[in-house]
């Protein structure tokens, strides 16, 4: 209320920054909901099925994975398992955010629903509890609204497009996965994991049912994760 209380001013300012970040992240992320909607329909989902994924599943990587496995002719079980494995990181975010948000009852469910990469990132970029909470809710809500509106637009457009290959939508799906992967590739051990996963997935493709190579490639994480960390540290020093 008055400038005689600097901590309050700083706090209000930090919350303002958190709101602006939340909204801009929402708009940017929402935009590529168009590609999800179009790809989902191209993979054989109905507009409603695509929309249910965006409304309730609401976690981009898992949504792309589910329609990717279905589009490749994989079994439903493999599609569900891929989506769940990719969605497991949201559980870790929820653990991290638990003490920050301090939610009970129906708010706990609502908070869990919007616990995704973007809302966690905006929240954790701040240092005060108040700014973290503000950032979390604004980012979560903005992404949810934009992501769903754009999914619908993409699904309706995809429905009208006809042959998805003529539009390069299969290549767009591969690019979408690369785009989600890119920001995670900085550590040397992440690069090793990604390379190993590509080799495993492609090598197994001729021999197992579609969808299974992706799940088995998760073993790359185990192989790299259980190797001593200094192995990768030494490697990056040498590079």
């Amino acid at each position, binding site marked *: 209320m008055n400038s005689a209380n600097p901590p309050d001013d700083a706090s209000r300012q930090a919350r303002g920054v958190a709101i602006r970040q939340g909204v801009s992240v929402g708009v940017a992320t929402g935009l590529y909901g168009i590609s999800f909607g179009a790809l989902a329909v191209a993979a054989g989902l109905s507009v409603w099925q695509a929309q249910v994924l965006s409304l309730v599943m609401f976690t981009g990587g898992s949504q792309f994975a589910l329609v990717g496995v279905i589009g490749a002719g994989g079994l439903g079980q493999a599609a569900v398992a891929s989506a769940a494995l990719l969605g497991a990181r*949201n559980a870790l975010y929820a653990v991290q955010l638990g003490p920050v948000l301090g939610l009970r009852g129906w708010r706990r469910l609502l908070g869990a629903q919007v616990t995704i990469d973007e809302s966690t990132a905006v929240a954790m970029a701040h240092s005060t509890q108040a700014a973290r909470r503000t950032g979390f809710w604004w980012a979560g809500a903005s992404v949810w609204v934009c992501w769903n509106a754009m999914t619908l637009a993409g699904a309706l457009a995809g429905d009208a497009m006809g042959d998805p290959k003529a539009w390069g939508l299969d290549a767009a799906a591969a690019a979408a996965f690369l785009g989600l992967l*890119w920001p995670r590739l900085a550590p040397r051990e992440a690069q090793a994991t990604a390379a190993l996963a590509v080799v495993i997935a492609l090598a197994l493709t001729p021999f197992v049912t579609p969808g299974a190579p992706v799940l088995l490639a998760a073993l790359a994480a185990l192989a790299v994760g259980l190797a001593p960390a200094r192995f990768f540290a030494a490697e990056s020093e040498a590079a």
Partner: protein
Amino acid sequence: MTGLWVTVLAGTGACLGLKVLGTYVPRTWLEKAKVARLMGLVTVALLAALMAVQAAGDGQGLRLDARLAALAVAAIALWRRLPFIVVVILAAATAAGLRALGIG
């Protein structure tokens, strides 16, 4: 209910369930186990595998075609720090353009 709906709803339930489950886990569990690091690597492995299969898979075979060129364009776009939606559109346009020319 069709099989596709079962897949959509089961996947949705699993992903939402995991989010809710996380809110009940005390933070100390995360610090004790090296779960966080491993989970980060699982995410990387799955995204990389999905990318590879989407770019070179063809049912139970492998096929090198316009998708690979499109993926290379996407990688350059990401390296140039272009926004996600631009990356995806450039990749689609590359594949569509090559196919229109009768390549791949």
